[in-house]
């Protein structure tokens, strides 16, 4: 116990030098002073009890301890006031921290919006650059309108694009192949396969052949002359006089006039 008292005295002497070292927190100081108070009060009470019980004369030590006790108590009270002030400052700091948080969230919100704006602008700039590239590319590959018109004239000169405006039945100029031409081609030759030599329907109609009633079977020009169709040359020439017999003009009335290979001298057939 006397060692504790001595340490208190030593601390009291040291205290002015403590300011140069890193300051302890108020909490640490308060707890330290409280410990000192506890030790000093215990020491004093024990000393007084002992001196009374043993009827010994009091040395000056109890006065010394008492003085120390009073001094520590004063320090304790001062520190408690400081602690209360710090409590108020702490409240103010908490309010400021809330302000800081709010500002942080505002800044984050703005940052998000700026990011979005940057993205929109970057996309717009990219698209504009692509457009400029296309414009540049188009300029490099530019052709005179005269050439384009010439080319258009050339490909449409053979009526491969559109029949002439003054087209009439019998006019050989057309943008599609005639039945005769189709029959003379590969598809037409496919009709000569063994499985489909009966009534001259198209290969696709092979299954339907024999199932449809006669009334419903389409009347195509080649039906009654399927053999002669097979003998036709594979390439079509300009010999459009070679009309397939059995041409039925009646049924073609419902069809667009230009879709059949008709001639003005076609003979009707049943």
């Amino acid at each position, binding site marked *: 116990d006397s060692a504790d008292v001595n340490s208190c005295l030593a601390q009291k002497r040291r205290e002015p030098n403590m300011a140069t070292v890193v300051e302890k927190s108020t909490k640490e100081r308060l707890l330290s002073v409280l410990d000192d108070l506890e030790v000093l009060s215990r020491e004093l009470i024990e000393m007084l009890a002992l001196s009374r019980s043993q009827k010994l004369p009091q040395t000056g030590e109890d006065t010394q301890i008492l003085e120390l006790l009073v001094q520590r108590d004063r320090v304790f009270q001062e520190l408690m006031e400081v602690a209360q002030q710090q409590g108020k400052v702490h409240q103010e700091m908490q309010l400021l921290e809330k302000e800081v948080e709010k500002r942080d969230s505002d800044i984050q919100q*703005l940052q998000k919006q700026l990011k979005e704006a940057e993205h929109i602008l970057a996309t717009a700039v990219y698209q504009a650059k692509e457009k400029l590239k296309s414009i540049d590319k188009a300029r490099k590959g530019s052709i005179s309108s005269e050439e384009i018109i010439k080319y258009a004239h050339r490909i449409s000169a053979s009526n491969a694009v559109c029949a002439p405006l003054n087209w009439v039945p019998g006019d050989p100029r057309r943008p599609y192949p005639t039945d005769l031409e189709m029959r003379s081609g590969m598809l037409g030759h496919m009709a000569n396969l063994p499985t489909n030599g009966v009534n001259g329907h198209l290969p696709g109609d092979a299954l339907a052949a024999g199932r449809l009633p006669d009334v419903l079977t389409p009347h195509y020009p080649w039906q009654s002359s399927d053999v002669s169709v097979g003998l036709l040359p594979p390439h079509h020439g300009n010999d459009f006089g070679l009309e397939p017999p059995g041409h039925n003009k009646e049924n073609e009335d419902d069809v667009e006039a230009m879709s059949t290979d008709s001639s003005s001298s076609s003979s009707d057939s049943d």
Partner: protein
Amino acid sequence: MAVSQPRQEKESEDCSLLPLVHDIIKCMDKDSQDVHQELTKLKAKIQEAREQISNMPGVDSSPPEQQQQLATLQEQVRTKNQLLQKYKSLCMFDVPKAS
């Protein structure tokens, strides 16, 4: 402040242990049986003071440190306000007002 000062003085007197020590010494002088009771009171008061100190807010730093922290926070708030003001005045887009 005049109204709060007496209250502050009362509070500082409340945390003083001297009255209790004085009571103990008086009891010892009278050879009263209340000595133990007073001793118990003193111990309880000390323990109570310890708990109170542990729960006190803002005492984890020294006053100068705390003042520094306060100044830092104030500076932060000021800087962030300035930043926000600058961005809001720069922004040409239709942004919703942040409350």
